[in-house]
């Protein structure tokens, strides 16, 4: 595509791919917003589940989040990156084939997600729900994108790498690392797998991924786009380029450590929680540095705020970025987290970022981009203005209602009376109090959704009034000469050697378990500062060195990779090592050799029985963890409400962990034995029978769907490979034990006039729920629990036929 003359050549940009990504961004945006409205409606009106298992909240919510993150923001990100990268590097993308493979591959991933989630095919990990074959597809598509991007970097006609490119590089390498590590799993079938990490390890890895998916998919790409598109829209250079460099490096280094703030006051080791909290607070600085840099880029152009809707969207987006990155560290302070965690406050926080920052940034880019892609002007500025105001009001209604609801929930749950007991022991009362806020949230979401139609119409008319254009640029025929120094010489330069040495030394001290004295720490810091200043006195050498790093894409990428690996390694490796020291099995021979182990043996977690495992897989399939936590924090009010606080060893055998992050319903960590089997049966058939104000969907399909015990035996065998201590006897007798435990439950129900097939999913789920919180201890018969007087129970006449003969694998 490059026509060469003697001195200059013409580079024709590939904007067809940008047009494709822009179009599909709008389409998926509407879908994501619609799904958001539906799940919000389901929380307001439980009937909005329509009694269909495929539309239940637990299955649609992952579809909504994935559509918003990967389909809407993801495609918008690709559109922006493909557009800006070509112009910043003054070169066409290296391969049109790879560009289109990226496009169609990504759409295939999204379609697969849209099919698999409603079917209940999930890994059961938030924002990482895709089943393993789709995960592999994601990896392939991401590699295609990465190869195309780095190939383009290699053939660029611009020597310097602008800061936006830095953000794109960090996104590509970090998402690759996060996605692969968090999705390490062992398949049991084509549609089901267990993650290799379990319990606390899985929790740490999941939130290391979950938080940094926010960081490196929802933050660094839009920041890179901000540094390009905001500059273009304002027609002003970046306010402070040096600040943008500090912003970039500080952000990517600090963000990766912050994941554990999702696990404050859980069974995660305290040191990891503290690291997560401290690094989250430190994130305030680079985040606000970036926000201020973005806003101040508009200096001298503020008059455009009155007339240009693009600038309006950008300003509000960056303002929401500042607000979210203030709120995030605030929520990461342990005492604030104690109030806000598990509540709607977190939902409000997330949507402030997703709707305010990501969506408005994407809208602004689309309004700027589409007219240029079609060589025309925006069809209607007034419609864009209207979209801006409708969207802004929608966001405010959403976020403020969730703040009010969340803080109210936090205060409600923790309120104690004068005697030190729960002031509001009925959890469902708190849910009822939030109803008005849920309706307000729904209204806000509807407004935001309706606003998106204004975008669709405006962009459609813009495209119709223009025509696709081809954009080219003249560049020197000869590419800029590479710096003479090789990457190896750069890596072995004095500043690089010094930094590498310091990192290696620090990790060595940590691995050795040494206690560095404050004096030694201070000495190291003083020496490092002295060395830098000494080297820095020679300005020319520093400037030269800076240029080498900035222009050498390979070295730059390696440094960015190193910056993001450090935090993950420091947090994950010790957790994995420490958790692996916890004994999973203590045999009689071991006790004979060391009698002291007898006491420890009482607390060794026992694996789930075949029936319980089947129930657990169904629990994961239905996304129950999206509304029910299984992690009681060490607070008096939680212990009073739910029972003894959760300990790390209790979930070590859980693949995946199910600690949850939200309590629309009660914590279930110790629900086992609290209610009898009939209560669980009635509750699952229709939650209103036991909790009249509940907004939980019905799970009547559990009664008719069946479990194949042979599938569960196979899954147990796979769990053995993950370290779950099932014995050969356990595997050999799995079918028999499955049937005998199921009959205990069905016989108990039969005595209360309820007929249930032993091989039904209902039986398995009841067994799992009755097991929760009763792991190491011998299982005792569940005591009968009185059913609330306010909940008249009507038991429908039952038939005595067994469930349909078609077996459906539990879980997936």
């Amino acid at each position, binding site marked *: 595509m490059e026509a060469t003359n003697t001195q200059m050549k013409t580079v024709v940009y590939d904007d067809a791919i940008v047009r494709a990504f822009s179009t599909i961004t709008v389409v998926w945006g509407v879908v994501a917003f619609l799904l958001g409205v539906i799940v919000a409606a389901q929380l307001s009106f439980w009937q909005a589940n329509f009694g269909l298992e495929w539309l239940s909240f637990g299955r649609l919510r992952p579809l909504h989040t994935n559509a918003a993150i990967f389909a809407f923001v993801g495609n918008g990100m690709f559109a922006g990156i493909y557009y*800006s990268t070509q*112009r*910043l590097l003054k070169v066409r993308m290296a391969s049109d084939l790879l560009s289109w493979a990226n496009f169609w591959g990504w759409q295939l991933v999204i379609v697969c997600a849209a099919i698999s989630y409603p079917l209940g095919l999930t890994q059961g990990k938030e924002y990482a729900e895709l089943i393993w074959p789709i995960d592999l597809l994601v990896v392939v598509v991401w590699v295609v994108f990465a190869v195309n991007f780095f190939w383009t970097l290699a053939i660029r006609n*611009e020597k*310097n790498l*602008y800061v*936006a490119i830095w953000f794109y590089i960090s996104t590509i390498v970090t998402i690759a690392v996060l996605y692969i590590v968090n999705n390490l799993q062992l398949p049991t079938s084509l549609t089901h797998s267990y993650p290799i990490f379990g319990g606390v390890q899985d929790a740490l890895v999941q939130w290391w991924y979950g938080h940094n998916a926010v960081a490196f998919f929802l933050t660094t790409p839009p920041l890179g786009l901000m*540094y390009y598109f905001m*500059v*273009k829209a304002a*027609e002003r250079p*970046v306010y*402070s*380029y*040096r600040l943008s*460099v*500090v912003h970039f490096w500080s952000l990517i*280094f*600090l963000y990766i*450590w912050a994941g554990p703030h999702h696990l404050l006051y859980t069974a995660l080791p*305290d040191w990891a929680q*503290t690291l997560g909290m401290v*690094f989250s607070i*430190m994130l305030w600085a680079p985040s606000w540095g970036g926000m201020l840099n973005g806003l101040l880029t508009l200096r001298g152009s503020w008059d455009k705020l009155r007339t240009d809707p693009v600038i309006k969207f950008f300003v509000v987006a960056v303002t929401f970025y500042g607000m979210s990155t203030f709120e995030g560290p605030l929520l990461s302070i342990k005492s604030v987290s104690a109030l806000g965690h598990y509540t709607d406050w977190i939902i409000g926080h997330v949507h402030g970022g997703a709707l305010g920052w990501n969506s408005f940034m994407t809208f602004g880019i689309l309004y700027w981009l589409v007219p*240029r892609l079609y*060589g025309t002007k925006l069809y209607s500025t007034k419609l864009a203005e209207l979209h801006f105001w409708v969207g802004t009001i929608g966001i405010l209604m959403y976020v403020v209602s969730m703040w009010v609801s969340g803080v109210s929930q936090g205060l409600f749950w923790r309120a104690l009376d004068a005697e030190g007991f729960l002031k509001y022991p009925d959890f469902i009362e708190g849910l009822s109090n939030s109803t008005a806020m849920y309706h307000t949230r729904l209204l806000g979401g509807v407004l935001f959704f309706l606003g998106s139609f204004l975008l669709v119409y405006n962009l459609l008319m813009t495209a119709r009034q223009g*025509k696709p*254009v*081809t*954009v*080219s*640029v*003249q560049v020197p025929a000869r590419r800029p000469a590479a710096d003479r120094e090789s990457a190896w010489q750069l890596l072995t330069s004095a*500043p690089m050697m010094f*930094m590498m040495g*310091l*990192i290696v030394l*620090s*990790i060595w001290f*940590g691995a050795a*378990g040494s*206690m*560095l004295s404050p004096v030694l720490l201070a000495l*190291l*810091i003083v020496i*490092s500062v002295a060395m*830098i*200043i000494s*080297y820095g006195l020679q*300005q020319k050498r*520093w*400037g030269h*060195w*800076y*240029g080498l*790093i900035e222009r050498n894409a390979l070295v730059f990428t390696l440094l960015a990779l190193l910056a993001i690996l*450090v935090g993950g390694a*420091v947090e994950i490796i*010790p957790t994995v090592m*420490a958790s692996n020291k916890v004994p999973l099995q203590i045999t009689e021979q071991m006790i004979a050799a060391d009698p002291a182990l007898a006491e420890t043996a009482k607390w060794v977690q026992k694996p789930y029985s075949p029936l319980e495992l089947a129930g657990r897989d169904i629990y994961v399939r239905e996304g129950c963890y999206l509304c029910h936590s299984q992690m009681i924090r060490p607070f008096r009010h939680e212990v009073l409400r739910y029972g003894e606080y959760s300990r790390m060893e209790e979930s070590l055998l859980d693949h995946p962990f199910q600690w949850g992050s939200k309590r629309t319903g009660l914590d279930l960590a110790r629900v086992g034995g609290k209610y009898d089997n009939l209560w669980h049966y009635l509750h699952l058939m229709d939650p209103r029978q036991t909790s009249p104000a509940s907004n939980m969907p019905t799970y009547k399909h559990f009664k008719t769907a069946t479990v194949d015990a042979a599938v569960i035996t196979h899954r147990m065998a796979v769990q053995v490979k993950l370290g779950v201590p099932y014995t050969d006897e356990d595997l050999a007798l799995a079918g028999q034990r499955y049937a005998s435990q199921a009959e205990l439950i069905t016989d108990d129900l039969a005595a209360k006039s309820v007929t249930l097939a032993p091989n039904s999913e209902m039986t398995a789920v009841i067994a799992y729920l009755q097991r929760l919180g009763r792991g190491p201890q011998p299982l005792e018969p569940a005591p009968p629990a009185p059913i609330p007087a306010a909940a008249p129970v009507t038991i429908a006449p039952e038939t005595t036929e067994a469930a349909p003969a078609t077996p459906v694998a539990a879980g997936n």
Partner: protein
Amino acid sequence: MFQEFFSNSTLLAWPLVGLLLSVAFFVGVLAFVFLGLRDRTRIHELASMPLDSEETVESRDGIRGGQTGRAS
């Protein structure tokens, strides 16, 4: 308080390693930026890179005209 918080932990070194690394990293970044990037002209060049483009826009009907970064 710090010692008390970690009194039963053998992993005290890790938060300290984290502290050491972040301080070193931050000092390194500041040095990288403020010592390595002191030429104001060069800073302005880098900051203006998105605006530095002389593009030609062509429709299916033929060339429609030049488009610069600043004008677009």
